[in-house]
């Protein structure tokens, strides 16, 4: 049985171990990895950063940096042992039989060559085509990946195309030679949700139409649930579990898989705000791996045996293997929610209704057009980054703000905190009108509103210790000095689960998650009423994201802090928020309590975002509503409803000509749309309703 599997598999890796030689000694980056992928199959390789996913994939192709080498194991591609090939033969495999799609399409394409030139190369190199024929094949491939206007795209340079279009070019390039294996290394991570959905559709179609096997590398459980047939979970260089997708999501058997599923928000529209399951500790360093099971130090199921000797990856049922001694005792994920998480409170029940902490009235921010485009400068064009936004936040609540990149979310937050001066409208905090900039605001007001930025590397001063960083707002805004200051710094560090001795460290000595915790502690140091969190978790690993979201929730429960939580990740926003505002091109499209915004009737834009959301549950059936094109430039906002150029439900003339009204739906829910809410409600299906509908239909059969 094993032999037949190997011959039918396109890629067959067995016992692969890869080492890096470094100054600190030899690092075993991948250990004893075994996997195979059959034609038309897709295997998801899931794990956090540093788990060795990319090293495994690239090492299998014998593409390693100079200090990396394969120390053990074999890799067969359609039966050929790659180790036996000469460099020349190997190059025929690269590109010829293996197509690779990369994380950052803009970086993966040569900036000074046209798309056509870069596609053509594949044809002339591997297929022996003449330049003209290869060029024509490139055009054909672009058509195949649904590229609009492929002819003109071929003549363009990478910087002239959007991220989604570039990724299509990279995919087209990989497909030129009809490879038998496609390696996709986080192909949608750098893209917007709506673009990601379009690219994922394309990958699904390709999977159906091609014979190729797909190795899909990602950290995003939502994406694997949508794309992959089987999943291999990697942890610190080892595959710890391998299972069919549905089986893994329904009943993970390795404690790490279980925790990984637990630490991502599940988009369950629950009425309570609940913490996520977290994993204590951090991934072990490769030069200090624990002697037994590598996950044992962080595993709550670990027993003496686990720390004594490493559990082998064994088949626990047909098609499923797991490297755990206690896999049969690992509980189903539903039980985890009850036992391992805490309810913070019911959603939207922070305070009596009617009470408002912060109110934004018709806020405008027009920025000078940056960039050096002569045309823009001549018109003295202004970017209407925030174009008339009204919203309010209740004390003790979290308002989630979602939208694609370029929708003006960050500018709105900066206008509230006073880092960017608004050009119109009012911001009112507890009945007091706020001045436009931080400089003009009295200290007391500055103290009340603090901000956590997306990139902690940029927002923490590398030459200040953690203690100085947290101590500054203490002394500047609260006038705390001396021993009391030291005491408070220690308390603040403890509140973000960092030991007190971290106060003497520099940001460079901290991990990404730790830096962001320091940034949160610094924001809390002023004892503010409102903290604006601008994509605070986007740059972090999933397990760290979970911990940080818990931290924010706990802070809210204990100190009653109000949050504006900005994210492009709808499931994180759904998880965190009491109310949600959906923003598009500088204006809100919808505003209301979380449960209402996430259920029909919703704005067509909200509907499209929800449809694009990769829900980490393979059973959820989503509508395929896809937005074409990109967000229009904020220097030329479309007439009428600004969403009409991309709206799948656009009514025509009315939407093009006239600005839509703010329709009230219920007591505190508004939709900015011409279509009557009753009509929307009749035509729209919620994500979770669809699943239940299907289940009941199937049950009745």
């Amino acid at each position, binding site marked *: 049985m094993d032999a037949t599997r190997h011959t039918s598999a396109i890629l067959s890796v067995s016992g692969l171990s890869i080492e890096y030689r470094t100054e600190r000694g030899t690092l075993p980056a991948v250990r004893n990895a075994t996997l195979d992928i059959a034609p038309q199959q897709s295997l998801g390789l899931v794990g956090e950063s540093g788990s060795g996913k990319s090293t495994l994939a690239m090492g299998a192709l014998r593409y390693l940096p100079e200090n990396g080498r394969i120390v053990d194991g074999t890799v067969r591609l359609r039966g050929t042992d790659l180790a036996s090939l000469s460099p020349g033969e190997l190059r025929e495999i690269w590109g010829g039989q293996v197509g690779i799609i990369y994380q950052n399409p803009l*970086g993966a394409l040569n*900036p000074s060559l046209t798309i056509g030139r870069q596609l053509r*190369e594949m044809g002339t190199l591997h297929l022996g085509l003449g330049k003209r024929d290869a060029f024509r094949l490139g055009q054909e491939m672009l058509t195949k990946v649904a590229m609009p206007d492929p002819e003109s795209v071929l003549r363009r340079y990478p910087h002239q195309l959007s991220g989604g279009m570039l990724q299509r070019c990279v995919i087209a390039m990989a497909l030129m030679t009809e490879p038998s294996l496609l390696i996709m290394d986080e192909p949608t991570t750098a893209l917007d949700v709506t673009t990601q959905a379009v690219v994922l559709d394309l990958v699904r179609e390709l999977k159906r139409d091609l014979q190729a096997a797909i190795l899909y590398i990602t950290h995003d459980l939502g994406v694997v649930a949508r794309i992959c047939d089987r999943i291999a979970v990697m942890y610190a260089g080892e595959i710890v579990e391998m299972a069919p997708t549905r089986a893994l999501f329904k009943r993970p058997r390795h404690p790490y898989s279980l925790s990984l599923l637990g630490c991502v928000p599940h988009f369950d529209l629950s009425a309570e705000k609940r913490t996520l399951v977290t994993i204590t500790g951090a991934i072990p360093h490769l030069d200090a791996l624990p002697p037994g099971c590598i996950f044992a130090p962080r595993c709550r199921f670990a027993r003496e045996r686990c720390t004594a000797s490493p559990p082998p990856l064994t088949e626990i049922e047909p098609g499923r293997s797991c490297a755990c001694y206690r896999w049969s005792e690992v509980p189903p994920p539903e039980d985890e929610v009850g036992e391992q998480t805490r309810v913070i409170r019911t959603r939207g029940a922070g305070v009596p209704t009617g009470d408002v902490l912060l109110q934004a009235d018709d806020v405008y921010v027009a920025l000078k057009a940056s960039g050096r485009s002569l045309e823009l400068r001549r018109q003295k064009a202004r970017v209407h980054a925030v174009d008339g936004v009204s919203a309010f936040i209740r004390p003790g609540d979290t308002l989630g703000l979602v939208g694609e990149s370029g929708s003006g979310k960050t500018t709105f937050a900066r206008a509230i905190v006073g880092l960017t001066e608004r050009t119109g409208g009012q911001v009112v905090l507890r009945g007091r009108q706020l001045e436009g900039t931080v400089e003009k605001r009295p200290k007391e007001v500055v103290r009340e509103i603090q901000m956590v930025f997306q990139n902690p590397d940029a927002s923490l001063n590398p030459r200040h210790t953690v203690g100085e960083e947290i101590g500054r707002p203490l002394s500047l805004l609260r006038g705390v000095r001396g021993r009391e200051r030291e005491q408070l710094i220690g308390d603040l560090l403890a509140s973000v689960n960092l030991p007190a001795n971290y106060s003497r460290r520099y940001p460079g000595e901290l991990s990404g998650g730790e830096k962001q915790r320091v940034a949160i502690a610094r924001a809390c140091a002023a004892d503010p009423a409102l903290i604006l969190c601008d994509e605070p978790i986007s740059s972090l690993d999933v397990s760290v994201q979970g911990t940080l979201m818990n931290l924010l929730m706990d802070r809210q429960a204990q100190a009653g802090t109000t949050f504006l939580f900005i994210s492009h990740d709808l499931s994180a926003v759904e998880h965190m928020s009491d109310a949600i505002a959906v923003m598009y091109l500088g204006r809100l499209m919808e505003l209301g309590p979380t449960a209402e915004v996430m259920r029909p009737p919703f704005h067509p834009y909200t509907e499209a975002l929800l449809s694009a959301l990769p829900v980490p549950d393979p059973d959820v059936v989503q509508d395929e509503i896809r937005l074409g094109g990109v967000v229009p430039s904020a220097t030329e906002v479309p007439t009428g409803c600004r969403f009409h150029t991309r709206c799948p439900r656009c009514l025509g003339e009315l939407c093009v000509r006239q600005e839509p009204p703010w329709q009230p739906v219920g007591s505190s829910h508004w939709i900015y749309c011409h279509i009557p809410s009753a009509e929307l409600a009749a035509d729209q299906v919620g994500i979770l309703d669809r699943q239940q509908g299907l289940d009941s239909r199937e049950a009745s059969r």
Partner: protein
Amino acid sequence: MINFIVRRLGMVVLMFVLVSMLIFSLTQVLPGDVTTMVLGRFASEQAKAELRSELGLDRSLPVQYGTWLADFARGDWGTSVSLRSEIGPLIWSRLVNSTYLAFVGLMMFAPLGIVLGLFAGLRRGTWIDNGLSIGSLAFIGLPEFVTGLALISLLAIQLDWLPASSAIPPGANFFEILPKLILPGMTVALTSLAYVIRMTRASTVEVMKTDYVRTARLKGLPPHKVLFGHVLRNALLPTVTVIAVSIGWLVGGLIITESLFGYPGLGRLVLSAVQRRDLPLIQATTMVIVVIVMLSNLAADIIYAYLNPRIRY
């Protein structure tokens, strides 16, 4: 692209006007009176006044500037006070000589520097790379009069392969004087070579780390195609620009080298003009050098835009 060049040209003209004002006003505040320089300390006031009006020095400054610039634009650059000869033909012959030397120097360091830099960048961390890095570091700090003297004592005096003096008869053609250009050319090249090597090496190392080079390699391209098709164009971008900018200096700024070898180029002309406080000559030579520097900068901009599609706006 045309639009881009036109705009850059406009800026060159504007810059030229500003610099010409600067040159004009600088020479006005230069210490020493021209008339005293020319006529000697014991000249009568009347003789001085006559010379002033002859030179136009008695008119108002804006008028002086206007006539001066107009004359300059017309090619009427006046007469050298110290050499008592027409400035136009004088500068022209020196410019030709300087161009010869610049060309020889450029040919010595540009191709070699690029090749060595690429080599070091591609073989990063090997003994070749380390050797080149240390060697070029050593040369980058050496002034031209040290390298020049060392070359003279070695190649001209000890080995007697090349002439030590580069004095040449006026109007000689390029191939007649080529042997005399080699030593000063080498002196110039040694200083710039190290710079070009280090620059090329750094950008090659940078480009080799990029994702698109990884893409090119994993397309299955053989190493030479990766190098010529994908690495070179991006890696040479900064180097080519720096070389183009350096042309201005090569033509107009080799004062030390030219003096050392007694080579009649523009640099030496500037030096003697300054030493003798020859105002018209200082102005004219400086203006010519400014034009050369600005044109070489313009060339660098255009080459950069041509090689880099991202800045064609």
